[in-house]
């Protein structure tokens, strides 16, 4: 999933300081799963904005709505009958959501309510970790199913650096050295020699380096 975290309340309040009718829009996709942008969090942010207004003795109206997904135009369309009632919109979807809202409703001020962090998963309840860098050409099968691009601090593809100690990365004791994991896993499987096979340099043209990416699936295009 795409993992995000809430923006500081102060930053959000500063964004919408000049608006009296604010719509908070959530998303039932990834951000619901990582407890940052679903219907529950829409309620929490809306309530927080109302409490802030109460404290400052200001009158505001805060609406709440959660879309099935903010990254699909057909669901974004759902706002067309309610968005006109509001001066500003806070999207608490990942960074994709507020952009889709901005494109669909160009006359509205759309603000991001979360900071999008990475593609990853929950390693424990309440703890998420990065797993994919979206490089566009997956190679994890060469590395025991572990991604050295997303999980090595240097994205090294030819083995660990000198900063690997005790299974940890020198960047932080909270980061496992993925190369330590890769080597141990392949040793356990008796496939360590797989790492000695010659492979041509990775094709990075599919990664972000080639500029904003676009994917066309002809069989799905209407």
């Amino acid at each position, binding site marked *: 999933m795409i993992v995000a975290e809430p923006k*500081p309340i102060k930053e959000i309040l500063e964004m919408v300081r000049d608006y009296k009718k604010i719509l908070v829009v959530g998303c039932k996709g990834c951000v619901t799963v990582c407890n940052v942008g679903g219907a*529950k969090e829409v309620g*929490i942010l809306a*309530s*927080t904005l109302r*409490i802030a207004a*109460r*404290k400052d003795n200001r009158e505001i109206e805060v609406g709440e709505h959660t879309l099935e997904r903010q990254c699909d135009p057909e669901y974004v369309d759902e706002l067309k009958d309610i968005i006109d009632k509001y001066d500003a919109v806070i999207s608490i979807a990942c960074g994709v959501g507020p952009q889709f809202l901005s494109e669909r409703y160009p006359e509205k001020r759309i603000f991001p309510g979360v900071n999008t962090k990475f593609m990853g998963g929950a390693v424990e309840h309440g703890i998420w970790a990065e797993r994919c860098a979206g490089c566009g050409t997956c190679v994890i099968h060469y590395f025991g199913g572990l991604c050295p691009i997303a999980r090595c601090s240097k994205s090294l593809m030819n083995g660990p650096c000198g900063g690997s100690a005790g299974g940890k990365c020198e960047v932080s004791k909270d980061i496992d050295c993925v190369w330590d994991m890769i080597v141990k896993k392949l040793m356990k499987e008796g496939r360590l020699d797989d790492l000695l096979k010659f492979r041509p340099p990775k094709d990075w043209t599919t990664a972000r380096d080639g500029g904003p990416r676009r994917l066309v699936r002809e069989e799905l295009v209407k």
Partner: protein
Amino acid sequence: MNDQNSRKIIAFCCSNCASSAAGISHKLNETLPENVEVIQVPCTGRIEVLHMLKPFENGADGVYIAGCQEDSCQYISGITKAKKRVQHVKKILSELGIEPERIEAFSLSAARGQEFVQIARDMTDKIKAMGTL
């Protein structure tokens, strides 16, 4: 309504421990301050962050959770979860420039009726000193 009673406080109370304590306090002829409104819940672990924020949104000046002792929760970890959420709400209040002490969580056993009333009185005094939100 006097000044003290005008400070509305919402008390979410576990129906096992805290509410039993309330029953004992009643038998002791100890009464809660009038400004404290008790909402009984089957377990304080069900009290979400939004439940804790809503009273502030709707005019309350203080909120507290009264639940079991951490080692004797009937649902294992209800009050522990509630206390974590209270800490989160304190952070939200702080970010808004509101005193985080306006929300608290307490653990008490079913037998401590006097303490149940004292918590309500202490919260009332504290919120009164802070004034309205």
